[in-house]
C-alpha cells in the first residue's frame, strides 16, 4: 500500500520475536526427548509397580454391585480379582479390565447383598496390589425418577431454601432499628460470613482429600476461591462506576451475598446428596431442625445491607431463591452423580464469594463509621456474628 509511515519506536511482534520465543520451547522438547530416550543417566525404573485406583462411586441394585473406578496411577493397570467380604467373586469389567491412566471403568459383580449389612470389597490388580472400598450400609442406590427427584428436592429445601427465607422474614422487624443497630447487624453479618467462609474452606479441604490426587484438590480450592473473589470484585467495581446511588450499591451487595451463599449452599447440597447416596448420613428430624437453625443466619446476612432501603418483596424473594435454591440443585447433582471434584470446586467458589462479600460489607461499614465513630459496635458485631454460628454449632453437634 501507499502507507509508508514506519514506527521504529513501537515494539512490534515480528517473525524474529516469534522465533526467539520458540527457541526455549524447541530446546525443551529436545531435552524431554533425550530424557525419554536415555533416562538422563538416572535409574528411573521403579522396583515395584506404582499403581493407584479410586472407587468413585458404587451402585447397588438387586443382586448387583457396580463399582465405578478410575485409574489415578501413573501407568495403566489391569483388574485381576475382586473379593467381597472375604469371598473371591466372578466379575466383569467394562469396557476392559485394563484401564489407561486416568481412564475409567465399571466393575460389575452379581452379588446377593443384604439390605442394611456392611460390605468390604478388595480389588486386586494384576500386580497384586490391593485397593479397598467399604460399603458401610448396603441399600438400593436411588435411581433418577420422579420420586427420588422429589426426595432430593426436599433435602435441598430443608437445608437451603427454608432457612434462608426464614432469615429474610426478619426484614420488617429489623427495618425499625436505628442506624447504629443496623451497622451492628452489618458487622454481625460480616462475622457470620467470615465464620461461614472458614467453614466452607474446611469442608472443601475435607472433600479435597477424596479427589483423585491427579486432580490436585487443594490447588482446585485455590483456583476456585481466588478466581471467584477477584471476579466478584471486578464486577462490583464496574458496577460502582456505572451507578453511583448508594442504595443501588447496597442492593448489589445484598445480591452478591445471596450469590456467595448460593454457591456455598450448592457445594453443601452436593456433599449432602453424595453422602446421602452412599448411606453416610440419614437425615433425621433432629438434623434437619439443626440445619434450619444454623442456616437461618444466612437469610439474615442477605438482608442486612438493604435494611435501610425499600427493596420489593419480589427482589427479596429472588435473593432468597438465589441464596437457598442452589442447595436443591446441589442435592440433585450430588445424589445422582456424586463428584468430589465438583463439590470441592463449588465449595471453593462459595468460599471466594463469601470472602469477597465480607470485603464489600467492610467497605459499607467503613462509610458508616466515617460519619460517626463506633469502633466497639464493629468489634462486638463481628464477634457476635461469629459466635452466633459457633454457639448454634455447639448446640447442634
Amino acid at each position: 500500500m501507499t502507507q509508508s509511515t514506519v514506527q521504529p519506536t513501537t515494539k512490534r511482534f515480528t517473525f524474529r520475536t516469534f522465533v526467539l520465543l520458540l527457541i526455549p520451547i524447541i530446546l525443551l522438547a529436545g531435552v524431554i526427548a533425550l530424557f525419554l530416550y536415555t533416562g538422563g543417566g538416572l535409574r528411573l525404573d521403579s522396583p515395584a509397580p506404582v499403581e493407584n485406583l479410586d472407587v468413585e462411586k458404587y451402585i447397588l441394585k438387586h443382586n448387583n454391585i457396580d463399582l465405578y473406578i478410575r485409574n489415578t496411577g501413573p501407568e495403566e493397570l489391569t483388574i485381576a480379582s475382586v473379593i467381597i467380604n472375604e469371598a473371591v467373586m466372578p466379575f466383569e469389567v467394562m469396557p476392559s479390565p485394563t484401564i489407561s491412566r486416568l481412564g475409567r471403568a465399571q466393575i460389575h459383580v452379581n452379588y446377593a447383598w443384604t439390605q442394611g449389612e456392611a460390605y468390604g470389597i478388595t480389588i486386586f490388580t494384576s500386580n497384586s496390589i490391593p485397593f479397598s472400598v467399604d460399603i458401610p450400609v448396603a441399600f438400593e442406590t436411588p435411581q433418577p425418577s420422579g420420586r427420588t427427584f422429589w426426595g432430593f428436592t426436599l433435602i435441598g429445601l430443608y437445608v437451603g431454601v427454608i432457612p434462608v427465607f426464614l432469615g429474610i422474614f426478619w426484614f420488617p422487624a429489623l427495618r425499625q432499628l436505628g442506624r447504629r443497630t443496623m451497622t451492628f447487624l452489618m458487622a454481625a453479618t460480616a462475622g457470620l460470613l467470615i465464620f461461614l467462609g472458614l467453614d466452607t474452606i474446611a469442608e472443601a479441604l475435607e472433600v479435597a482429600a477424596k479427589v483423585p490426587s491427579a486432580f490436585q484438590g487443594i490447588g482446585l480450592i485455590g483456583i476456585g476461591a481466588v478466581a471467584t473473589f477477584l471476579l466478584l470484585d471486578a464486577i462490583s467495581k464496574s458496577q460502582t462506576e456505572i451507578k453511583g446511588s448508594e442504595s443501588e450499591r447496597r442492593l448489589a451487595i445484598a445480591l452478591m451475598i445471596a450469590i456467595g451463599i448460593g454457591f456455598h449452599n450448592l457445594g453443601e447440597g452436593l456433599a449432602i446428596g453424595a453422602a446421602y447416596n452412599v448411606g453416610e448420613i440419614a437425615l433425621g428430624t433432629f438434623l434437619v431442625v439443626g440445619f434450619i437453625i444454623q442456616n437461618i443466619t444466612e437469610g439474615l446476612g442477605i438482608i442486612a445491607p438493604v435494611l435501610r432501603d425499600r427493596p420489593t418483596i419480589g427482589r427479596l424473594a429472588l435473593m432468597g431463591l438465589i441464596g437457598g435454591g442452589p442447595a436443591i440443585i446441589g442435592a440433585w447433582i450430588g445424589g445422582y452423580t456424586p463428584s468430589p471434584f465438583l463439590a470441592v470446586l463449588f465449595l471453593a467458589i462459595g468460599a471466594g464469594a463469601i470472602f469477597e462479600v465480607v470485603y464489600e460489607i467492610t467497605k459499607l461499614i467503613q462509610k458508616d463509621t466515617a460519619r460517626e465513630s463506633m469502633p466497639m459496635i464493629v468489634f462486638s458485631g463481628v464477634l457476635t456474628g461469629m459466635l452466633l454460628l459457633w454457639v448454634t454449632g455447639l448446640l447442634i453437634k
Partner: protein
Amino acid sequence: MKPLSRRDFLKVGGLAFLGTAGATALTQQTKHDHVHENNSNEHASHTMQQGDHGDLPGTVGEVDHEKNGFNPSDTLTDFDYGEVSTLPNGQTLREYKIVALNKNIEVIPGIEFPAWTYNGRIPGPTLRATEGDRIRINFSNGSNHPHSMHFHGFHPGEMDGVPGTGPGGLVEPGGNFMYEFDAEPFGLHLYHCHVFPLARHIAKGLYGTFIVDPKEGRPPVDQELIMMMNGIDVDFDDANDFYAVNGIPFHYQNHPIQIRVGEKIRIYLVNILEFDLINSFHLHANFFNYYPTGTSLTPSEFTDTIIQGQAQRGILEFTYKYPGMYMFHAHVTEFAELGWNGMFEVMA
C-alpha cells in the same frame, strides 16, 4: 479432639432414624425401584448369573498351567518314587533331584505370584518311598536366596536342613547339598525350606509332601490322591489373600475330580498354611476314616470334618454311595470362599 465441621454434624445424623419426609420418600422409592429393576433385568448383561441369588464365589477363566509348569489336576496323582537302585547291602536306594527356583506362578487368572519353588512347582514334587529305603536328595539352589530342605522324619542332625546344622542347613545360591537318610517312620510327612525368615520362605512356596509307605504297604484302594492345603499372600502383608489345595485356588471347583460310586479313595492331606492358625477339610455327603500322620494302620476317627494346624497331616479313606456332585472344602468357610473349595464328580 478434632474440631467439628458442619459436615461432621451431618454425619452425627447417621445415627438418627430416618425421620423426615424426604428420607421417607427415598426409602419408599427404594422399594419401588426394586420391583422395577426385576422387570428390566432381561436387557442387563449378566453372563454369569446364578438364578436370583448372585454368583457363587470363584474365578472366571483359567490360569496358564503350561507356563506355570504344573497342573493341579496332575499333581493329585503325581507320585515321585525317585531313581531306584539297590545298594550293596540290599537296601533300596531312591535318588531325587530337587532344584530351588524363583518362578512367577499365575495363581488367579491375571495375577502372577513371585514364588519360590522346588522344581518350579507349588507344591514341590511328592516324594514317595517305603519304610527303610535309603533316600538321597541332590538339592541345588538355582535361586538368588539361600534355601534348604527340612524333612519331617528320622534323620541325623546334619541332614535336618536347619541353619547351624552344617552345610545342608543353608545352601547358598548356586550351591548344592546331598541330603541322605533312611525313610522312617512310615506315615505321611512333608518337607519345606527352613531358612529364616521361615514364614516367608514357606509362604512363598517352598514345601512338598513326603510319603513313607509301610513295608507291607497299605491296603489297596482304587485311587490315591495328594492334597496339600496352602495359602497365597500375594501382597506380602503376612496375611493370606487366597487359599488353595495343590497351589491354585478354586482349581478343583472349576475342574471336579472324577471318581466312581463304590471306588475306594485315599487322600494324603497335608496342611502347610502359613499365617492362619488352623485349616480344615470337610467332605460332603460322606464320612471318612482318618489316620492322623498316617503312622498307624488303624483309623482314629470316622468323621466328615477334621482340623489341622500347620504341618499337621493325615490320611483319609472313603467311598461314595451315590452318584452326584459333592463339595469338599475347608470348613473354615472364609478359606473356602477365597479359593479352598473343590468338587468330587461321582459317576455311577
